[in-house]
């Protein structure tokens, strides 16, 4: 009996030491390679970090699923938007000719782009699914210009780690890591199903990000800031969503 107990004790001790050592190494690696999400702390930190780190490594070169044209939803659901402000109505009345997208932060040449300017950039389209965290979904064709192209135009600096984006409505903002920003599916979307992007779906300009859930695809985008330090924004959690209890990373 004693012999077995001692052996068990040694095995247990070695396993525990390996476990603690492994965790310490994993933590250092995760920090070094930027695999800890901005909201990856507190009681849900370990789960968030595991999900984000695994999905980041798995998907870095993978595109979201695309669908045949026949699968485009006939009657997509736009979800609710805040009632448009007078300022928004004024821009809408002018055909959004005065809509501007500001690009700044860690870039060599900050830009101010109109929709017409954006339309001179390469046009891409994708037929992808919008999946809401609530569970529902629809498929549409999204037409726009890849975010990566705009960042290239602005000369994004090598130290950039996150792209922060703001909506027309004050206080609505999010961010994605540079890997998601460089995903060729990440579109500054101006068109949907062969027409202009309707206002309820985020027109005139929505950031589409099909590898994450719908709430990361911010509607009415007006401002993009490249940064090397996400902690400087808001409460330092990467987007406004964690301030309402929702995860920064929404790949699942």
């Amino acid at each position: 009996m004693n012999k077995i107990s001692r052996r068990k004790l040694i095995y247990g001790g070695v396993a525990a030491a390996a476990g603690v050592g492994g965790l310490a190494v994993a933590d250092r690696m995760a920090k070094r390679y930027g695999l800890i999400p901005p909201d990856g702390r507190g009681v849900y930190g370990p789960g968030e970090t595991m999900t984000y780190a695994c999905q980041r490594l798995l998907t870095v070169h993978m595109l979201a699923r695309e669908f045949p044209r026949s699968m485009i939803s006939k009657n997509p659901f736009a979800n609710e938007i805040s009632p448009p402000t007078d300022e928004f109505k004024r821009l809408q009345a002018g055909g959004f000719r005065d809509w501007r997208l500001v690009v700044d932060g860690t870039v060599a040449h900050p830009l101010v782009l109109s929709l017409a300017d954006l339309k001179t950039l390469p046009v891409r389209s994708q037929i992808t699914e919008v999946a809401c965290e609530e569970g529902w979904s629809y498929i549409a064709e999204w037409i726009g210009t890849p975010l990566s192209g705009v960042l290239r135009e602005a000369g994004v600096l090598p130290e950039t780690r996150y792209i922060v984006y703001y909506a027309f409505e004050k206080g609505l903002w999010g961010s994605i890591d540079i890997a998601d920003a460089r995903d060729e599916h990440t579109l500054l979307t101006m068109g949907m199903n062969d027409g202009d992007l309707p206002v309820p779906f985020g027109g005139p300009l929505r950031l589409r990000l099909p590898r994450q859930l719908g709430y990361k695809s911010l509607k009415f985008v007006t401002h993009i800031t490249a940064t090397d330090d996400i902690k400087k924004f808001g409460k330092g959690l990467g987007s406004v969503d964690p301030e309402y209890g929702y995860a920064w990373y929404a790949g699942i």
Partner: protein
Amino acid sequence: MLYTGGVPAASQLERTKTRRHSGLVRAAHWLTFVAFVALLVTGGEIVISHPRFYWGEVGNVNTKPLFVIPIPSSRDTVPTGYGYVMPDQNGWSRYLHFEAAWVAVLTGLVYGIYGVVSGHFRKNLLPERRDWSWRAYGDRMVQYLRRKPPGGTEETSYNVLQRTAYAVVIFVLFPLVIWTGLAMSPAFTAAFPWTAALLGGRQSARTIHLIDSALLLLFLLVHVTMVAVSGFRSRMRAMITGYGRDSTCDSREGR
């Protein structure tokens, strides 16, 4: 003190401790229990935000549902027929759901490797060769229905119905609930599109995820009932300390 005079030697032998569950099985059992309760509660909260279920790739309030759970929703965009909207609990529910899922998956991984390597699956969980017949199932069912007390062997081993139930939960329901969960992830399906395609689409995965969870809940209820009926304290003792004793000890202990 328990074994005072007049107890025959034979039954004293019977009452010596018997090893029932290994340390790894016990740790895995309780970790899974905690994770499963968290998954169940948070999963329920997430369902409330859209209690409509669909088949195929897409589904939303503008498409025909496969079925609707007749409860109020935590979103005013869902037509439920109820005049009120429940509070939104999805934020923390989603955080906790995925954290608990990691606990369940990692525990399952270690348990699965252990089960194969140690022979635990073969010895304890897969139905024994002699029970590979409908008759064996029928006989055991009759025994349950007649409420006959289990034979001595069931103190240390599982019968064919128990083995089948455990095997279905461990080899079918848990793997499927993990698969259907991942098949709803837009990032995971970017890397492994077939995980959604094989199930018929994202909404099919969501519907199967719900049904699978309901079956796991059913298992939990039956499992706890059977544990209660067959001697709650001795079964709990076995799953906590690893040792089981003759169930007649249960009634004696209180004295």
